[in-house]
């Protein structure tokens, strides 16, 4: 067993090491004589990283067309999930509700909680509405979104959320709460289930600190 695995592990480790090496090599060499990495001068303004530039529209739990850009102005806690997820997703949604409860009233009113389904063919807006009601999610703050699968994949890749269907309607997926600032720029992630929730609430409040209204 050990003997058969050894070369395999070497190959695997080599492969894992490879991308970094390829990357350095890609940028640095391969074309002799000049740098291949022609950087665009200057850093892009933060708004260039806003999620609100993503193309496409969504449908919310009321069946209404919804543009992500309509969230502009307040902080957003964004979670990708699916309604028939019976293990992890309900815990993450409950955690979001806990963060909601932790926020001071004036911050809570101005924060949005957005759940986007990774299973849009099953999680129709009607089912999302039923999910929101069952979990007692306040419709003034909670938005549950359905969109075309390709659009979901793009959003997931923007926030670094990985998922794949594993048959029987279930998904293997990342556990991640994403914090967006008031312009839709990702400013924080909280991964896994055992992270403390207080820092997330504090982050949201800090995004509202000094804001008028």
């Amino acid at each position, binding site marked *: 067993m050990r003997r*058969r*695995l050894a*070369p*395999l*592990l070497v*190959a*695997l480790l*080599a*492969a*894992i090491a*490879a*991308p*970094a090496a*390829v*990357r350095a*090599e*890609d*940028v640095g060499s*391969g*074309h002799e004589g000049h740098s*291949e*990495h*022609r*950087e*665009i001068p200057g850093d*892009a303004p933060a708004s*260039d*990283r*806003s*999620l609100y*530039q*993503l193309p496409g529209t969504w449908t919310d739990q009321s069946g209404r067309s919804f543009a992500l850009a309509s969230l502009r102005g307040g902080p957003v806690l964004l979670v990708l999930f699916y309604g028939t997820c019976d*293990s*992890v997703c309900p815990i993450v949604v409950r955690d979001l509700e806990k963060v909601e409860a932790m926020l001071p009233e004036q911050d809570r009113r101005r924060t949005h909680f957005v759940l986007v389904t990774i299973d849009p063919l099953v999680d129709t807006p009607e089912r999302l509405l039923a999910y929101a009601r069952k979990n007692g999610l306040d419709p003034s703050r909670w938005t549950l979104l359905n969109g075309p699968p*390709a659009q979901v*994949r*793009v959003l997931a*890749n*923007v926030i*670094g959320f*990985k*998922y*794949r*269907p*594993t*048959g*029987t309607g*279930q*998904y*293997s*997926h*990342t*556990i*991640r709460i994403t914090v967006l600032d008031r312009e839709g720029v990702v400013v924080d992630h909280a*991964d*896994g*289930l055992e992270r403390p929730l207080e820092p997330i609430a504090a982050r949201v409040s800090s995004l509202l600190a000094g804001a008028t209204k």
Partner: protein
Amino acid sequence: MGLAGLLGIALGAAAASPEMRLLPGGTYVPLYPVKNERPTPVAPFLLDEVAVSNAEFLEFVRAVPAWRRSRVSPLFADRAYLSDWASDLELGPDAPADAPTTFVSWFAADAYCRQGGKRLPTEAEWELAAAPPREDAAAPAETERRILAFYARPRGRLPRVGSTPPNAYGIRDLHGVIWEWVEDFNASFAAADARSDRERGLESVCGGGAIGATDAKSYTTFMRIAFRSSLEATYALHHLGFRCARSLP
């Protein structure tokens, strides 16, 4: 229906886009299945015979200015994006028109395919396309040797697209020219940080990782999946290009 029958359909289905080939689909077993995971059924689909070339990608950025090098959002591509081109709309000596386009992010590849009414192939589709049924028992070992030789070769200039012989499905360049984006490039270790697979996530990329794998014989599949899993969707790398697929109506 046999392969010949399917290929007969291919001639009809592919008439509008002669550069695509019909693949019969099948069943793909993920290299790292999670508990109770079932093999992924793959429906017959169309796949580009060759990778997208610089010339083709240039047409795309002409048509869609938001994907030009100077205008692309940092949300969608890192700073190496199209860095081998001479300028926004000029390929230059480092990016031959007939070579595969590389230094493109996943977002750019995805947008290119969708603009043409296509999509990126899934990992399952790509891996099935790259492994036609074998007639010769010695073939797998030989194929693995050839692919490993490519993976080990120092990176030089890219050959033109279509420069390698077609495989049994009529698809070229799957091995030996570039690495390719797939739609779900980062899904293999999707649950690496999920609760139920927390420990597995570590094992997957560490010593005992191969024990959980379904096909421990294929070094090159391991290498491809490890490579893909290491990517971020904004990465633009030399030797990382793509081709498009299309579902049958």
